[in-house]
């Protein structure tokens, strides 16, 4: 979706605010919100891209106002409700509905190291045709999906060069909506800064994006 989250190239969002000796979490609740996200994801009711999409759905003004972990909290709450793990009434009251079933077992402390060590592979060891090859000139498609996508607006319609084939990965545009993994090749595509931003940009600079087969067409 053409949301405010897709902010590459925007002006007017202010200077970068740097904090020296920044703590990992700025308040206890941030750590809890972070950890709840990971522990809730362990139920495998939604994909990472579904969570990202949920964050993208936060209304623009709210998105810009909220801190990072506030967005995570908002999104995970919405995913929990939509996946049926909790009801909205339970979220509002903070109490389990009378007679509601208890889901067990949750992720335990003992399982945390193993879960983090194995991570979640987004690559897939399945055959998929590579439609492009290293060195090939390509154009990022000029598409504007209303759902989740990882093709930023600033690259759409632009010409680039395939620098590397990363292999086969699940496709965010479908997996975010429960429409299948649709595994396909992901390429590192190099766009010159002048192709993206015009003659004002440095002729030496470039931006590399990792783009799926479905985002590209032959130039």
């Amino acid at each position, binding site marked *: 979706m053409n949301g405010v989250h897709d*902010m590459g190239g925007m002006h007017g969002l202010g200077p970068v605010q740097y904090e020296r000796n920044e703590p990992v979490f700025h308040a206890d609740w941030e750590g809890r919100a972070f950890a709840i996200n990971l522990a809730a994801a362990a139920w495998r009711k939604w994909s990472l891209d579904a969570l990202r999409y949920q964050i993208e759905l936060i209304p623009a003004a709210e998105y810009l106002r909220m801190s990072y972990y506030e967005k995570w909290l908002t999104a995970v709450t919405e995913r929990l409700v939509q996946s049926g793990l909790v009801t909205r009434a339970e979220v509002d009251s903070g109490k389990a509905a009378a007679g509601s079933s208890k889901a067990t077992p949750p992720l335990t*402390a003992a399982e945390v190291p193993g879960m983090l060590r194995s991570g979640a592979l987004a690559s897939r060891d399945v055959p998929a045709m590579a439609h492009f090859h290293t060195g090939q000139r390509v154009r990022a498609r000029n598409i504007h999906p209303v759902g989740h996508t990882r093709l930023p607006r600033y690259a759409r319609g632009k010409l680039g060069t395939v620098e590397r084939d990363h292999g086969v990965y699940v496709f965010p545009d479908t997996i975010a909506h429960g429409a299948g993994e649709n595994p396909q090749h992901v390429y590192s595509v190099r766009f010159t800064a002048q192709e993206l931003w015009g003659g004002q940009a440095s002729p030496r600079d470039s931006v590399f994006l990792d783009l799926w087969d479905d985002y590209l067409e032959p130039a």
Partner: protein
Amino acid sequence: MSAPPHGHDRDHDHQVVPSDPALRVKALESLLTEKGLVDPKALDALINKYEHQVGPRNGARVVARAWVDSSYKRRLMQDATSAIAELGYGGAQGEHMVVVENTPEVHNLVVCTLCSCYPWSVLGLPPVWYKSAPYRSRAVIDPRGVLREFGLELADETEVRVWDSTAEIRYLVLPERPAGSESLDETELAALVTRDAMIGVAKVAAPAMGASA
């Protein structure tokens, strides 16, 4: 806490305007615990992991090893995920790693314009500025201006490569080894390497005089 009227669950994009997030988290954790969906001890373990164990010291060890061991560096540039795993790092948000090398001619900078993707396994959780709208919006269109704000002025001749983490590949910058660090051992070198240098918003500073006595 304000909430949308019940029975309007289809209005998903009309999300709840929050009250105090601290209170909301507390209520959510209590609910999820009561329902058997999370174990508070697992939350403690997750927080402890990222507050005390996984952080930029991991990445600094990778960088220092690459500086002192050319065959390690070769493996790192070819297959970063495996080379980083040799030092015991990997997993969550480090499943698919690529390392990009800074040289006198090329400067690399990492961003995620669409959200805040970051190589947790080697750098820990990202700082607020990395997740902020100013950095995400400007790193791709004005990398030199952003770097200037970080105190890094690049020569016009230097080529800047910005890596926008749009997929599940995570990027780590291999900074240049600073002049004056020739006599340092791997552990001393690792102590010089900062998080910012591994994102690409800084260079690794030369060691302070006398540090390598």
